[in-house]
């Protein structure tokens, strides 16, 4: 394994951003994502990039808007409370149609909450990142390798659609160490003739703006954006499956919960229960089609989450509530055990058998 190094998720993410051509990072320290900033504070000066510890999360996201407007790849990262502070900026990024990469290494909430892993910002990431009608592309890594590869992919998607990509990780993904290969491939170039880079008196000036006082015009901006979202939902869905072909019970989980779920599925199979895993990699767009398809043969679903049940609503919507969906969850920084998930799988098997 000559080409592999042992990295923390937060470090792998930061290095992948550099490999994706990101030379501007603005952030503010918060556990459990501080290593992103610490790593880039060391690396950016070595490669002529900018690392800037802003005076606040609000300042950092506005600096992101500035660099994105200039057509350069830019990243900020934080953990749950810090993402709430960035909320206004996320809405402005969407309103300005700017590409950016924002990382949320989630911790328990609400409020200051705790510093241990959580997935309770699912609603915030997929529904309510800020005011107004908009979506972000939301990617959920489940390994250190994916912390790197999804950041690389995330920058590409952001440029491709002029949108914000959010990496929705959890504290575990940020903190755990695994061998990682940093062979990321080549960076795609996208047309950025819209960027504000100075006209040199050779062209009409570009404007980056989210204000449209004419309602007819603002309506059109929103419609255009939603037409694009529709295309993204058709093209960019990513998920992973494990033993779903013959599954009676479909477990749905992302991030660290998917790792726990996999172990529970192995245990369930040993007990003769046909369980399988669908792991959404894109949380928006959500992998609705595959769930609908799996619902045809499955008796019941189990959603495993480090929240009081947020993704479960998307599962129910995707399968149009045609099957019972149970929730296996721990919150506040706790991680469900495979045994706890297995218990829910067994319960689902029982309920599914009756239905």
């Amino acid at each position, binding site marked *: *394994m000559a080409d*592999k*190094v*042992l*990295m*923390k998720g937060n*470090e792998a993410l930061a*290095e992948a951003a550099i490999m994706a051509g990101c030379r501007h990072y603005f952030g503010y320290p918060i*556990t*459990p994502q501080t290593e992103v900033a610490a790593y880039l504070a*060391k690396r950016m000066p070595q490669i002529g990039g900018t690392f800037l510890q802003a005076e606040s999360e609000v300042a950092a996201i506005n600096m992101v808007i500035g660099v994105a407007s200039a057509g350069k790849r830019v990243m900020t990262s934080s953990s749950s409370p810090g993402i709430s502070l960035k909320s206004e900026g996320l809405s402005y990024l969407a309103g300005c149609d700017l590409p950016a990469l924002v990382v949320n290494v989630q911790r328990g909430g609400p409020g*200051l*909450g*705790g*510093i*241990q892993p959580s997935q309770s910002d699912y609603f915030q990431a997929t529904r309510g990142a800020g005011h107004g009608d908009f979506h972000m592309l939301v990617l959920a890594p*489940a*390994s250190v390798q994916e912390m790197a590869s999804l950041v690389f992919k995330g920058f590409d998607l952001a440029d491709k659609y002029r949108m914000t990509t959010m990496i929705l990780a959890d*504290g*575990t993904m940020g*903190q*755990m*160490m*695994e*061998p990682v290969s940093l062979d990321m491939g080549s960076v795609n170039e996208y047309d950025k003739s819209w960027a504000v880079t100075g006209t040199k008196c050779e062209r009409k000036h570009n404007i980056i703006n989210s204000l449209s006082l004419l309602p007819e015009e603002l309506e059109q901006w929103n419609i255009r954006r939603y037409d694009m979202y529709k295309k993204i939902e058709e093209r960019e869905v990513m998920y992973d499956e494990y033993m779903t072909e013959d599954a009676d019970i479909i477990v749905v989980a992302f991030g*660290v919960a998917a*790792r*726990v779920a*996999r*172990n529970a599925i192995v245990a369930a199979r040993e007990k003769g229960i046909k369980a399988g895993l669908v792991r959404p990699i894109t949380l928006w767009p959500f992998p609705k089609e595959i769930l609908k398809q799996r619902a045809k043969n499955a008796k019941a679903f189990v959603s495993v989450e480090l929240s009081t049940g947020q993704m479960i609503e998307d599962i129910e919507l995707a399968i149009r509530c045609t099957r019972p969906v149970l929730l296996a969850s721990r919150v506040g*920084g706790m*991680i469900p*055990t*495979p045994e706890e998930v297995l218990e829910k799988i067994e319960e689902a098997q029982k309920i599914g058998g009756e239905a």
Partner: protein
Amino acid sequence: MKRVTLFAGHYGSGKTNLAVNYALRLAEMGKKTMIADLDIVNPYFRTRDSEKALADAGVRIVVSPFANSNVDVPALPQEMYAVTDDKSYFAVVDVGGDDRGALALGRLAPALMKEDDYEMLFVMNFYRPLTTNAESAVAVMREVENASHMKFTGIINNSNLGQQTTGEDIIRTHARAMEVSRLTGLELAATCVREDLIGEVSPKIENLIPIRLHFRDEWAIF
């Protein structure tokens, strides 16, 4: 054997796991042992995670009351002074990573040097991205010495790729460990090897420390 053993090194070099293994070994040998977690940088995977194994072995644990709690502050407990004040113990100290992590050691440095019964070991993992060669490892070593006001007395090769480490992965880093030894004049005190790889590595490298990984394994495999 010195009364105090300090494990320091670059960030993510595996100091904590090594310190825990070492403390457990001292306890097995029947020594009255304490382990002190001086890591104020990383509030996540700390000695505290191995608390049960250590407590069961009768090891006294000195750790920040805030470690793994909801209070995100770099605080050390007053009990930390037991490392230098209570000489009835063999003390194992897990120093935080890099120069920033080693800063806290400066507080204990005068008493440790006065007693002069310690070993300070530099732990290296050449699979970490910022210390892949001897030169970068030595650079971190000097930074840690400057921050802690203490000098290393030996080095330990703890090169690993976590659970996926093979014997060959360890063997191929040996030359770099010897290069650090040559550059610094410090002895390679030991090479860490996961227990099941000992047979593969022992014909090639001397002075092995068998290591057991302490982690929460329910989500480690993927």
